[in-house]
């Protein structure tokens, strides 16, 4: 849909204007490959469609090992940054990665590659579910999957809790239990709860640094 064949008539530059130099931030790593917009879209669509739960592993393999768009250090830094931002890490990663190479348009194209194909897929699945969602067989299978997914999340919690609850730490466990109790048990709204808990946790982490 983006294949407009009309060649844009390039105005001859005014005699006094110099040609635009490449932006200095983009030329920090000259030996690295700089992806085009089409490559960005394809890369993130591929990551998205091959990533079941393990999107991080896929994105690392492609960005660092196969295409050499990032060094391992750059990948770690970008990913650490994304984990601070609200929203899914991989979505933030696509925006930051795309815009670092190709500006705002690059960010948008990378994001579209990441969420476009699964959004289409899920819309179709939503339509199918609207017709067949009441079938007992389907319902039982989906209940099984949801139960397993809950179990996977519990395993993640247990693994994260290990280092947190070690060393007779008090602050971390307290924050974790308070968050769980207010959201999971009391089912309070997320925004006001986090508006209180996050600043408190930051202050406590700063004091006990």
């Amino acid at each position, binding site marked *: 849909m983006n294949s407009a064949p009309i060649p844009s008539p390039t105005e001859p530059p005014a005699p006094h204007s110099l040609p635009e130099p490449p932006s200095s931030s983009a030329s920090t790593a000259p030996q690295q490959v700089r992806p085009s917009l089409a490559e960005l879209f394809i890369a993130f669509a591929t990551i*998205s469609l*091959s*990533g*079941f*739960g*393990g*999107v991080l592993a896929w994105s690392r393999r492609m960005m660092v090992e196969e295409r050499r768009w990032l060094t391992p250090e750059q990948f770690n830094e970008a990913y*650490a*940054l994304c*984990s*601070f*931002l*609200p*929203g*899914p890490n991989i*979505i*933030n990663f696509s925006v*930051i990665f795309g815009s670092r190479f190709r500006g705002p348009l690059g*960010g948008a194209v990378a994001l579209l590659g*990441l969420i476009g*194909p*699964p*959004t289409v*897929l*899920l*819309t179709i*699945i*939503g339509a199918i*579910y*609207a017709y067949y969602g009441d079938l007992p067989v389907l319902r*039982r299978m*989906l*209940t*099984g*999957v949801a*139960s*397993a*997914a809950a*179990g*996977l*999340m*519990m*395993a*993640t919690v*247990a693994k*994260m*809790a290990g280092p947190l609850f070690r060393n007779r730490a008090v602050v*971390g466990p307290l924050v*974790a239990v308070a*968050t*769980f*109790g207010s*959201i*999971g*048990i009391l089912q309070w709204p*997320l*925004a006001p709860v986090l508006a209180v808990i*996050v600043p408190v*946790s930051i202050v406590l982490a700063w004091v006990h*640094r």
Partner: protein
Amino acid sequence: MKVDGGTLAALAGYFALTSLFAIGGGNSAIPEMHRFAVDVNHWITDQQFSDSFALAQLTPGPNILIVTLIGYHVAGVVGALVATLAMCGPTCIFAFFVGRFADRSQGSVWHATLTRALIPVTLGLTAASATVIATTSDYNWAAAAITAGTALTAYFVRVHPLWAFAVAALLGLSGLI
């Protein structure tokens, strides 16, 4: 399906706001989405929410796209697109600007402090998500056994999620659940 502008606006505004509070990944917002879509607005039932969660897990792509399914339930294809854009838009704009700024502020003290402050919050939210999903799906002893079995297995061995889902779906298919 009839699409009404007020509902679409509510979907968009709500998911845009919620996306900014999804700390530590998409699953953190599961309890909040359940509260709002099922308990407050009665857009979908418990069972539909649980099914949507399972379908989003089974579909490749970011799991946050459960919002696409919720949007579809509420307002068809338009709802699906509106919900998806609302959930991704604000955080992406945020990420864009932070990405620019953060090029110059790597490895500072507050970096480490923020990490230590946010990890327990993420932990609590993930535990809450697991609880909400486990209590929302059509629950019986077999489903509880699947949850417990998956949790124990995944804690001690590296399990690819698809294998866990495949086994659980087969158990469901066999009529055990």
